[in-house]
């Protein structure tokens, strides 16, 4: 089982890094955990261009000049958890909606017609509304049209993940939100998500079930971002050692304006977000790095080629929001409102190829070959 050192000790390790440690991490073929700590430190801030250059070099070598594209489909805003920062929190008095399977399929079809081949199904954590049967059935109905369908829903058992894999789900995102157990307790007030350890063990269950890809991540704005970065690195390295057949991605969504009056406990600037992203790329050359529409157009354009490998586009965070674009039921408001073709144009204009399809449903059993 993955055991995280005390969060405070991570902060101490980072704070103890010297400029020489940063330089060493930049010239080493692999930075290692000590190198990651140095790259996340305040000492590395003044060397951000060097971090960007090394990150860009590694990214080009490992991923080429490409950016993968995906879009989320929100299927439900019901949630049994009370989380201080989330628009879907159980205590928020909002109009809630769960899509019927037909409605969810219609949303996916719209994205399919727009040219999306990779879909992320998102739901609040309410197993009675969106459970394993719902997700499996939706995957079975739609898998012939999409190269990859991934999910971001409540953590499930290994057996449930195996069921979903068989039904056509290829990957699972399950973010710890924060690796600081004290802050975690403060913001996850009730519901199953309040169990820090259960959540921390979830990515390993996903991998154990045979899923092709596991996404881990933290919500930026809860705890010290530098220590979150080191915790992500430690978690990722542990997962890689134990599940060498699995692909991993990391996300670090920054908190966006949402229902409720929660204000970020920690501010993370664009420079700091960039430092975190570069540091993780230098630490792990092969991990997928996700930059969603939470970030603004200017920032996302600027970051093309520097480290991220996967962008969402044309996203709506409300259940049914593609069918009814005026829906007010969104989880949070996005920062980049461009359509898929607009995002693709921007990617091309920076000399990169927007990749729509990088998987095939036929890899998985149960899918007809022709």
């Amino acid at each position, binding site marked *: 089982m993955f055991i995280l050192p005390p969060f405070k000790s991570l902060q101490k390790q980072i704070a103890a890094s010297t400029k020489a440690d940063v330089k060493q991490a930049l010239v*080493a073929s692999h930075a290692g955990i000590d190198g990651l700590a140095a790259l996340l430190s305040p000492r590395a801030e003044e060397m951000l261009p*060097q971090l960007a250059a090394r990150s860009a070099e590694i990214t080009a070598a490992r991923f080429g000049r490409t950016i993968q594209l995906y879009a989320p489909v929100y299927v439900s805003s019901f949630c049994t958890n009370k989380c201080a920062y989330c628009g879907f929190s159980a205590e928020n008095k909002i109009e809630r909606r769960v899509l019927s399977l037909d409605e969810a399929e219609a949303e996916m079809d719209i994205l399919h017609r727009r040219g999306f081949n990779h879909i992320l199904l998102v739901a609040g954590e309410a197993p009675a509304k969106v459970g394993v049967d719902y997700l499996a059935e939706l995957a079975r109905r739609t898998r012939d049209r999409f190269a990859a369908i991934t999910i971001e829903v409540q953590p499930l058992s290994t057996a449930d993940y195996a069921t979903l894999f068989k039904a056509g789900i290829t990957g699972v995102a399950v973010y710890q939100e924060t690796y600081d157990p004290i802050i975690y307790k403060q913001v996850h007030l009730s519901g199953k998500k309040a169990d820090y350890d259960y959540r921390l063990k979830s990515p390993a269950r996903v991998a154990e079930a045979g899923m092709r890809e596991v996404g881990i991540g933290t919500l930026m704005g809860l705890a010290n971002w530098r220590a979150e970065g080191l915790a992500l690195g430690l978690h990722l390295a542990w997962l890689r*050692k134990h599940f060498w057949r699995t692909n991993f991605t990391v996300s670090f969504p920054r908190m966006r304006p949402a229902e409720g009056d929660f204000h970020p406990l920690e501010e993370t*600037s664009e420079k700091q977000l960039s430092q975190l992203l570069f540091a993780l790329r230098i630490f792990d050359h092969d991990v997928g790095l996700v930059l969603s529409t939470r970030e603004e157009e*200017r*920032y996302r354009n*600027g970051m093309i080629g520097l480290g991220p490998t996967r962008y969402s586009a044309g996203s709506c965070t409300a259940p049914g929001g593609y069918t009814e674009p005026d829906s007010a039921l969104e989880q949070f408001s996005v920062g980049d409102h461009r359509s898929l073709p607009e995002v693709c144009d921007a990617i091309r204009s920076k000399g990169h190829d927007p990749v729509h399809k990088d998987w095939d449903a036929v890899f998985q059993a149960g899918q007809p070959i022709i």
Partner: protein
Amino acid sequence: MLEIAGKTFRSRLFGGTGKFASAKVMKEALMASGSEMITVALRRVDLNDPEDDIMANLDRDHFWFLPNTSGARDAEEAIRLANLARAVGNTNWLKLEVTPDPRTLLPDPIETLRATELLVKDGFVVLPYMNADPILALKLQDVGAAAVMPLGSPIGTNQGVLTKFQVKIIIDQARVPVVVDAGLGAPSHAAAAMEMGADAVLVNTAIAVAGDPVRMARAFAAAVDAGRAAFESGLGRQGPEASASSPETGLDFLR
């Protein structure tokens, strides 16, 4: 300190008992090497006989014995030898060698994986000798190998770590110690393996057949220490281009 299957070792240089001019030279060289783990070919020694020239010269309180299955051509033969070692050698540790081609003595990956799985289930601590194949290394770990022993180059060739690219991947991915075995013909070869992050190296022929095996053993010991220290100190990346001190990566878009 190096730890394998719960046992710790101060020395990261493993030795062997083959090819020495005499048992006396073997003993002196192995003592000079500082090695604590010594592999012994089961086909060469009589573990039962205290008068056996190898066994009589090596103190089992000083050296941890690692019987090997040298000569086994398939999993079945290796397992029979392993059971012999356990029955009369009083150890469940085993360096698994399955080498069906007597010319190259290259290890058979399929039989090695099969034998490892069966021997681990039967309670052995298995250290398989293997070609430097990263996926095989992962699969051997998955079935319970206590360490993996990729070859640097074919046994007895003195070519050094020709497989360095593969060995590096094996080291990066390993959950158990990686011991580079075979082909290390000079102390610089051992140092190179240790600089890459190998947990230990096994050297036999290069010491045993040296003009002065005792001095050569000391030279290998020093090289292993130097390589390990270099690895732990953090080596720079080797590349054709120098890192630009002021790269042109524009970050003007950041707010």
